[in-house]
């Protein structure tokens, strides 16, 4: 469904990603793990169209999307929950969700709203509250729900568990699994590698902007090199 083929990208002439290739197949959860500053966020921002790749190709659903504007990439069905969430703070929860469905027609929006309320009932309770007044965990749920409102075929999540209490980390990852079970393909970025590897089908390890390792999640959790370098064991 998504293929990166030798993608390089960076900020203002500074190259951050080097020749990154990865694929995400229909229905998979693929994890992208790596240390601080490895280039995980840069990878997602490049896929989402915020950064233009300096080399390589990005294909999504049989279309070359490198150089496409972010809003058009969303319309194509590739939606991101960004690091830091980028919620519309002063807008209410329901307004955030309505905006999430900006690319959809009114009937689809109404249906999606019911579905995300079912997935995250707390959002229905807080519908009229400004997004910025909610707790971190609730904001993360809102960010995921807002992305789902766009009815993505592929959902990319950038460290959805960062800054959350351990109990909430489990809840968020559980939601990710349920989202996949609803037929949405997932590309999950995590620093918390142990958790991510345990729920994903396949994983890529990013190191200094390049893919250092890849394989099945379950196999990688057992790999002594991975355990030493990324899991601190």
């Amino acid at each position, binding site marked *: 469904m998504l293929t990166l083929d030798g993608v390089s990208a960076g900020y203002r002439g500074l190259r951050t990603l080097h020749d990154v290739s990865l694929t995400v197949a229909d229905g998979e959860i693929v994890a992208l793990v790596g240390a601080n500053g490895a280039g995980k966020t840069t990878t997602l921002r490049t896929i989402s169209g915020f950064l233009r790749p300096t080399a390589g190709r990005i294909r999504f659903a049989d279309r070359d999307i490198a150089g496409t504007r972010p809003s058009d990439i*969303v319309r194509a069905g590739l939606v991101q929950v960004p690091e830091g969430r980028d919620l519309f703070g002063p807008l209410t929860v329901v307004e955030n969700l309505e*905006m999430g469905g900006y690319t959809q027609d009114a009937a689809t929006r109404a249906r999606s709203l019911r579905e995300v309320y079912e997935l995250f009932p707390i959002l229905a309770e807080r519908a009229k509250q400004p997004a910025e007044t909610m707790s971190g965990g609730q904001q993360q749920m809102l960010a995921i729900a807002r992305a789902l409102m766009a009815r993505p075929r592929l959902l990319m999540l950038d460290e959805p568990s960062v800054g959350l209490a351990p109990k909430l980390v489990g809840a968020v990852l559980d939601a990710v699994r349920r989202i996949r079970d609803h037929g949405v393909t997932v590309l999950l970025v995590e620093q918390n590698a142990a958790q991510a590897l345990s729920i994903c089908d396949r994983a890529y390890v990013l190191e200094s902007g390049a893919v250092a390792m890849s394989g099945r999640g379950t196999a990688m959790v057992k790999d002594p090199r991975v355990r030493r370098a990324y899991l601190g064991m």
Partner: protein
Amino acid sequence: MTRRAPLSLAARLAVAAAVVAVVLVLAYARSGSGIVVSQAVLTGLLLGGVYGLVAMGLTLIFGVLDIVNFAHGALMTVAMYGTVLLASHAGLDPYLTLLVTAPALFGIGMALQSGLINRTMGSSLANQLLLTLGIGLLIENVLLLSFGSEPRSVAVGYAAPLRAFGAVADLTRVIAFLGALGLAALLYLLLQRTRVGTAIRAVAANPDGAQLVGIDVRRMYVLTFALGTACAGAAGTLVAPFVTVEATTGELFNIIAFVVVVLGGMGNVVGALVGGLLIGLTEQLGGVLLPEQSPLLAVFVVFVLVLFLRPQGLFGRSS
């Protein structure tokens, strides 16, 4: 050190009301005449409504595009000349010209933003300031070249003085006030109740987030600039019947609107309307309290006080 809890909105409104009450009493003591005071209040509120509309456009542009538009007043003047021409040459009712000037200024706003201002988005504040200042000066000089330096005016056939509480208000000022309030309410409803209005607020809140939900942010910038410019245009037409129209007439409104925007909280459209009314009152009551001085003196005193005491504005959120 303990930080004082921020005052609630109701408390802030109460403080504002108390200040207004004290000023009213002082003005009464100073002038010794109730009629002078009520005249100042009436004139101030009526003009304040128009200030509010001009400032709403300015604050909307600031809140969404992060640009202080110093061409706002010159664009308002363009609409005044539009009304002068259409009323005196085509014989249209001055208020009917609103149907031409507001859409025309909307179009001019679209062209300016997508053709020129767009290029400075994200560049330094100084660049944007110079650009909008330059556009403003250019417009003024084109108006001067086209229409000369002779002041123009617009005649309204049915102008008549209205009386309330011993004060007199010209019908044209009452119409301007009601028109400004009506348009302000329309703009507010557009922003709060429609999909495109919510999208504009979303862009103001988080442009990256807006792109991530599929909003074409560049289009929203153009639309917002056009809406803000249309506000200036509508205000220009509404005041045309009671101001002398010159190439620089809009400048004063631009300065006052800037003060109003800061007072109401940068980017806050409701704050802009309330701020407009307060500045209208300040200007007129200032004239009563300090009769020897320019009425703008009181406006600037308030401006400096706000900058010192509450830089986020009366209705802004402290960050």
